[in-house]
C-alpha cells in the first residue's frame, strides 16, 4: 500500500476475489430454483421412409409443447434443446439419432408450442426399421454462467414405423 502501483494492484485484485465469492454464492443459489418442466412431445408425421442399398432413411416431424421458463434463472446462460430418436435393431443394440435441436438464449421465447418441427433425418445403419418402435425423447442441457453444465431428459413418446416403405412423392 506504500506506492501507487501497489495500491492499484491490491485493489483490483481484491475486486476479483469479491467477484469470485459472489459467483460462488450464485452457483450455490442454484439449488433453490426448481428445474421441473412439463414437456409434451409426439410424432406429427412420417414424411419419408425408404431404403437405399444397405441403409434406411426417414424424415419425421414432431409436435412439441414445452414451457421452459422455470429453467431461466440468474445463472442460466442458455439452454441447448434436442430431441433424440432411440431404437434397437438386430444389427445394433441401441441407436440414438438427434432429429431436432435448438439453442435457446431468451426467456421470452422459452414457451414453445410448435407443430411439425423437423431438422435432421433418421439414417439407420443397416436394415431393420420396418415395424420397429422408435422412442422420442426430449433432452435439454442447462448451460450456466458459472458452475457445471447439467443434462436432463424429460418427456418421451413412442411410435412405430410402417411395415412397408413409403413411396417417394417426387
Amino acid at each position, binding site marked *: 500500500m506504500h506506492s501507487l502501483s501497489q495500491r492499484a494492484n491490491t485493489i483490483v485484485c481484491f475486486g476479483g476475489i469479491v*467477484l469470485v465469492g459472489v459467483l460462488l454464492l*450464485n452457483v450455490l443459489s442454484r439449488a433453490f430454483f426448481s428445474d421441473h418442466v412439463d414437456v409434451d412431445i409426439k410424432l406429427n408425421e412420417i414424411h419419408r421412409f425408404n431404403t437405399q442399398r444397405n441403409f434406411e432413411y426417414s424424415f419425421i416431424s414432431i409436435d412439441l409443447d414445452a414451457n421452459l421458463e422455470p429453467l431461466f434463472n440468474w445463472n442460466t446462460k442458455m439452454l441447448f434443446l434436442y430431441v433424440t430418436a432411440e431404437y434397437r435393431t438386430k444389427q445394433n443394440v441401441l441407436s440414438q439419432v438427434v432429429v431436432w435441436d435448438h439453442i435457446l438464449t431468451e426467456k421470452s421465447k422459452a414457451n414453445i408450442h410448435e407443430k411439425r418441427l423437423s431438422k435432421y433425418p433418421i439414417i439407420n445403419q443397416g436394415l431393420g426399421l420396418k415395424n420397429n418402435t422408435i422412442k422420442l425423447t426430449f433432452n435439454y442441457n442447462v448451460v450456466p454462467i458459472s458452475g457445471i453444465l447439467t443434462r436432463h431428459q424429460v418427456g418421451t413418446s413412442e411410435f412405430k414405423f410402417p411395415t412397408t416403405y413409403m413411396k417417394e412423392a417426387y
Partner: protein
Amino acid sequence: MDFEGQKLAEYIYQYTIIIFGVIGWIIGFIKQDFSITFYSVALGTFLSLILCLPNWKIYCQHPLSWQKPIVQSTPTDKSK
C-alpha cells in the same frame, strides 16, 4: 501516504468492495440478473480506486517524526 493512512485506505477499499458485492448480489438475486451483480462489484472496485489510489490529504495526517540529522563533526574540522 503514511502508515496510519495505509491502514485507513485498506479498510476503505475492503469495505467498499464487499458492501457493493453484497448489495449487488441481493439486487441481482431479486431481479434474477447476474449482470447487475457483476457491474456492482466492478463499480465498487472503480470507486475504491478513486478513493484509495491518489494520495489524498486524509491519508497524510500522521506524518512520521524523524530524528533530526546528526551533524557529524569531522576530524578535519577540529584541527582547524
